[in-house]
């Protein structure tokens, strides 16, 4: 067991690109579930749309993409996420909350299964179950950090940099700078919106939509705006993931991804601007810590033969238990107000 390696891997993961992906997804869910009370269980679908939008539009024509710029790819992702929100919202938002949950979970699975199907491999050049890769080159070629440091981008991207226990490649550092910037923009946007009368209407819809309606608020319209806004945030999670991996892979967007983002949100505290950010970081830190421990134990041959093959599932088992304990003993999460959460029980 190499504990120093576990420490380095865990600390590095805590602020790394994959943590950002979950933070962005959870920020979107915070708009949906935290502020508006919409049970969107299909955030992975929005993430998939984000990842594939940028992949299909920006991948070179040689691999079947459109060969357009990365900017256009990101724009396409955003537009596609807006359209997806409208498509899901129009039939379901007028129904009760649980219908939205069922529809969104189904839609996200449909998206994933269509993307990985042979049909879309042939007709939409999605690459089937192996996905699309090789579209993020321009992002790394234009690494601003390298330019600031006066180092050629290729060399900077390949170099490992470390500060204390944090170790990142130049490549990941660049993703992190851009990713955390996007997180900050969304956090400021959320803060501005939620202290405004607009945010008050969203929270009133969460509490009781008939009351909002009886006061002349167009509940359907507000729910749609919230679904679009949070969906776009989720799409950015997919965009960051796709660019970081230089790969859009359908099975990154299984429903589990949505639930892991929910876990991050609940851990941090819903309906708080900082909730999904701190929750996402802590959650992903714990997750990678357990993954690293399991990996080390595996290589040290510490598991009995019967467990060894499935040891990779253990982190999920622990996280599941941890989430249950959290909901029982601190339902408000890190930032929430327990009194506020318990108002529901009255």
């Amino acid at each position, binding site marked *: 067991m190499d504990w120093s390696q576990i420490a380095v891997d865990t600390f590095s993961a805590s602020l790394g690109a994959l943590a950002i992906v979950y933070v962005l997804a959870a920020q979107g869910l915070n708009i949906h579930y935290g502020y508006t009370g919409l049970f969107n269980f299909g955030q992975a679908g929005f993430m998939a749309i984000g990842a594939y939008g940028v992949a299909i539009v920006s991948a070179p024509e040689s691999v079947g993409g459109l060969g357009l710029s990365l900017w256009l790819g990101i724009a396409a992702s955003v537009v596609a996420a807006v359209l997806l929100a409208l498509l899901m919202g129009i039939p379901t938002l007028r129904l009760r909350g649980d219908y939205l949950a069922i529809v969104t979970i189904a839609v996200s699975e449909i998206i994933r299964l269509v993307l990985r199907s042979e049909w879309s491999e042939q007709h939409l050049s999605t690459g089937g179950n192996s996905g699309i890769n090789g579209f993020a080159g321009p992002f790394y070629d234009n690494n601003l950090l390298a330019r600031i440091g006066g180092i050629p981008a290729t060399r900077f991207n390949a170099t490992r940099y470390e500060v204390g226990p944090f170790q990142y490649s130049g490549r990941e550092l660049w993703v992190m700078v851009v990713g955390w910037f996007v997180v900050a923009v969304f956090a400021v946007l959320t803060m501005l*919106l939620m202290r405004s*009368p*607009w945010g008050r209407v969203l929270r009133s819809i969460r509490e009781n939509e008939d*009351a909002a309606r*009886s006061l*002349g608020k167009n509940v359907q319209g507000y729910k749609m705006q919230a679904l679009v806004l949070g969906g776009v945030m989720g799409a950015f999670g997919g965009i960051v993931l796709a660019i970081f991996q230089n790969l859009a892979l359908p099975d990154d967007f299984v429903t589990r991804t949505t639930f892991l983002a929910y876990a991050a949100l609940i851990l941090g505290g819903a309906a708080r601007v900082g909730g999904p950010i701190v929750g996402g970081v802590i959650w992903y830190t714990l997750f990678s810590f357990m993954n690293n421990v399991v990996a080390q134990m595996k290589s040290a041959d510490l598991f009995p033969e019967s467990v060894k093959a499935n040891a990779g599932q253990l982190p999920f088992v622990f996280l599941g238990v941890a989430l249950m304990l959290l909901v029982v003993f601190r339902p408000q999460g890190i930032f929430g107000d327990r009194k506020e959460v318990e*108002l529901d029980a009255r």
Partner: protein
Amino acid sequence: MPADEGSTPEASGTTTPKGRVSGPGGLLGLDPTVGVSKPDPILVADGVVRRFGGVTAVNVDHVEFQRGAITALIGPNGAGKTTFFNLLTCFDQPQEGDWSFNGQPLKGIAPHVVARRGLIRTFQLTKVLTKLTVIENMRLGATGQRGERFLPALFRGGWRAQEQSNTERADDLLVRFKMDHMREQFAGQLSGGQRKLLEMARALMTEPELIMLDEPMAGVNPALKQSLLEHVKSLRDEGRTVIFVEHDMDMVFDISDWVVVMAEGRIIAEGTPEQVGRNQAVIDAYLGSHHDSELDAIIHGDVPDHEVPIVTGDPDRAPSEEDR
């Protein structure tokens, strides 16, 4: 605001420019028959029918509600009062019928649009927004808020002044309803009666022309009841129209100018509280036609095999002749 200049609580109402008498005064001397037309109706329903499967919950031929007056809608449990409320405010859609507010038809209109036109309702089970503070509940009621649109919401400068004036109005209302000391509490921490008050105050934030209260007294303690009564009366004094559903007969007789009685989905009587109180059809609908003999029968061990008549139509007619 339908400023019916200076109508006072006991006032006999004012004459509108069109020569119609609005307010409670317009109800004086009206023939207390079902569907009687009012001098200045604000809300009119015609042939409204709502069926749930095979059950006809509401079947109202014609009813008019007088502007500037307090009208009570009463009836036994299951009479369809709340359903009728839901239909009038477009929270539910009837199978048949038309209804209009200020002469504008409301059929097929979304409930929030109805609210924006000045017809505000409250709910039987209060719908305060538990995780919003009292003052935020109040602010939500204000109409035409610039900051409630997505892009303008981002720029505080565009809505700060409006928010301030809304807050001042909200604070005034909270003082009037004696809730100013709870300003910063979560609405979920309030008692049932306080929630009723908050819901009414919040409804007033919209400056409604017509306010429809669904059982404002349910679950309110007697001490609070009196102040709630005064608040309802003061709405009329401001020139607003009030329609309320209520089981508390003291309240009905105390404050209403006109009473509409429903039973089994139909309107069986209307008139002033005194007229309705004397109406045999109403007494029967509430208590069963043999309510006086009921107790006697039990005491004397002589249980009569009668059934409660289904009362419809003319309230002045004794129901026993035809309804069997």
